[in-house]
């Protein structure tokens, strides 16, 4: 019996030693893994590929991520549908795509570009700052995916062939170019009585320039880059009323990244907000004053209400996330408590 106890005791000591050794090796391996796991693939949608501004911005992001012990290989995509498919198939660990496409992964942040929901860059900054705070982290995760940051891409404006188009009613019967990727644009065009003409980004502005479309929307950068000024001649204009706020968002597969990565990423991307905004503003300032169409205050009220009704309708069709609309309404009412919608019965 004594011998058995002795053997068991020896075995126990041996077992404990092995256990310690395993723990030591395990923790070393873990530390090594944590320090730098294998490089992750960040797939970036940019129509210009590696020559484009989004890819350029992500090169900076890559250097910062190294400090969080995350190494990225960057891969350019000129078609965001393929980028999203590759992401779903596991060929990319993270992607940067437009807010429209993000709806496939996170309906909450994918609704940030809802029409008329954020009327100024002050509203946008407030929204993005709020969403990059640790308290909002739970909203950033849906299923296997997490949003790692939201980059402003500028307000979308209406470019019209005829500057007499000043009110929503004037859009009735017009051929309105809409992006196939964003169903809300088609819904909105139908809502105002227009004829939506679906297109991809390559054909949208060239169709406007060659007269096949009466109205298109887009950020100010298209004025120069896509030469939209050619389509505005001779009597067109740009309606000075932001229809929506476009964004690019980074989405990653949560399990593939270390804990805390998402929050670090969101905070860093928000810290670059002002830099991104200055580039956007310089594009807007690049549109000569003669093209801007001022909307009189009395007509603005009508615009605001029409867009609000459109959002409510698109929420019912499950295109927009109701929670995001509520957050954005609260931001609007926080910055301008006098807005009539703040006390409306059917408020978002």
């Amino acid at each position: 019996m004594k011998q058995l106890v002795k053997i068991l005791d020896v075995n126990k000591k041996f077992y404990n030693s092995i256990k310690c050794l395993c723990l030591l090796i395990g923790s070393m391996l873990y530390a090594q893994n944590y320090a730098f796991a294998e490089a992750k693939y960040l797939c970036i949608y940019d129509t210009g590929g590696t020559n484009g501004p989004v890819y350029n911005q992500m090169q900076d992001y890559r250097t910062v991520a190294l400090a969080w012990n995350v190494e990225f290989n960057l891969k350019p995509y000129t078609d965001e549908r393929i980028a999203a498919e590759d992401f779903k198939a596991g060929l990319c660990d993270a992607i940067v795509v437009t807010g429209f496409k993000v709806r496939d992964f996170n309906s909450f942040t994918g609704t940030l570009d809802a029409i008329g929901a954020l009327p100024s860059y002050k509203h946008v900054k407030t929204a993005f700052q709020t969403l990059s705070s640790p308290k909002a982290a739970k909203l950033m995760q849906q299923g296997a995916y997490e949003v790692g940051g939201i980059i402003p891409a500028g307000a979308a404006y209406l470019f019209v062939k005829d500057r007499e188009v000043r009110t929503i009613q004037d859009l009735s019967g017009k051929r309105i170019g809409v992006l196939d990727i964003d169903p809300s644009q088609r819904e909105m065009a139908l809502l105002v009585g227009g004829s939506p003409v679906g297109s991809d980004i390559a054909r949208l502005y060239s169709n406007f320039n060659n007269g096949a479309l009466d109205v298109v929307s887009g950020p100010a950068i298209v004025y120069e880059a896509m030469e939209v000024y050619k389509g505005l001649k001779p009597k067109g204009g740009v309606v000075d009323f932001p229809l929506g706020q476009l964004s690019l968002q980074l989405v990653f597969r949560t399990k593939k990244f270390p804990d805390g990565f998402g929050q670090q990423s969101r905070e860093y991307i928000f810290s670059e907000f002002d830099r991104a905004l200055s580039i956007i503003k310089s594009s807007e300032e690049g549109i000569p004053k003669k093209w801007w169409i001022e909307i009189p205050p009395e007509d603005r009220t009508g615009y605001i209400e029409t867009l609000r009704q459109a959002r409510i309708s698109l929420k019912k069709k499950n295109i927009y996330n109701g929670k995001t609309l509520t957050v954005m309404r609260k931001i609007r009412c926080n910055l301008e408590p006098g807005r009539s919608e703040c006390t409306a019965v059917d408020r978002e």
Partner: protein
Amino acid sequence: MDSFACSIKTLRFSLALVFCGFCVGCQSVYHATGDFLIKYTEDETVPYVLSTPDAGLGCGLGEGYTLFMLSFERVTESPDRLGILLKTLAGVCSEQRAWEEELRYLRGVKTKSSAEASDARISQKRYLAQAARRQHQGYMHMVKTFGEPGLGCPKLNDDNEEFLYLIGLVNGLQAVLNNIGADQEAGVPMSVAAKVSRGSRCLNSAKWWGTPQALEAAVWATIPGINQTDIDPIDKLKEASEIGIEQGVRLSQVFEAQIYSAKGDVKAAKQVVKAHAEAVKKMPPDPRLKLMDRISTLQLQFLSDKLWTNAKGHRTPMGRLGHFWDDHKEEALELDIDDLL
């Protein structure tokens, strides 16, 4: 006393007259000197520089000579034609410095040094902004000389004017791309790219090493909606490269490789680098345009350097342009030494 006062007045008047005469004389001397130097530079310096293969000296000339030559706009007609080429050469210097910083950034990423990589990116952007400014100025000298491209074709009287027009267009596209790389710090209008695309149609592509059609196709492939035809820009780029190889000025290959690289097609980009290295070995450059061909080689060498650095942490090894680390190696024949003894 009166006569003394009179003498003083006369002296003052004489001095004023001499001073005026001196100034007028200076102006006419400056004017003549300016005209002479501009003419000499256009007729002799430019062809000489283009016929030398040392891109470093070309870049040095661009940086050292630009302000001196352009200062003659104060005393005679603005030497815009020279400005196109000198700003191009000065832009080459800035681009090369930006390349070095980009390689440092890639090494920083490779060695997982966030601080090094971030610092290199900042420095790279500064040089890209400088390159974009210089190239845009070169483009604007071209606009001043021949008018805005894309609004009909200018009257180009001889080969020299066609050459300057082409170089101005290349400057325009490079300025747009470098400006994007520099967070748009240089403020180059994006519409320049589309104007370059249309302007390139004013030149005979077969005569200019395929470069005009390479420029047009590069813009088509970069900015959506510019291509109003059914022609695939990649086919157009391939054809342009063939023309350039045949003529010994292989600038079109740079655009072809850059577009593959931009779209993430590394395999195709490597093939262009290989084809370029082989073409350089097989056929010497056009003796009148060795500098243009050399700059093309350096651009492709940089692309190769980026690929090597990403994979191996260092640039293309000496004498290995056109070769890559993952090339299929021919199995060496191994014999049994005992059979040979």
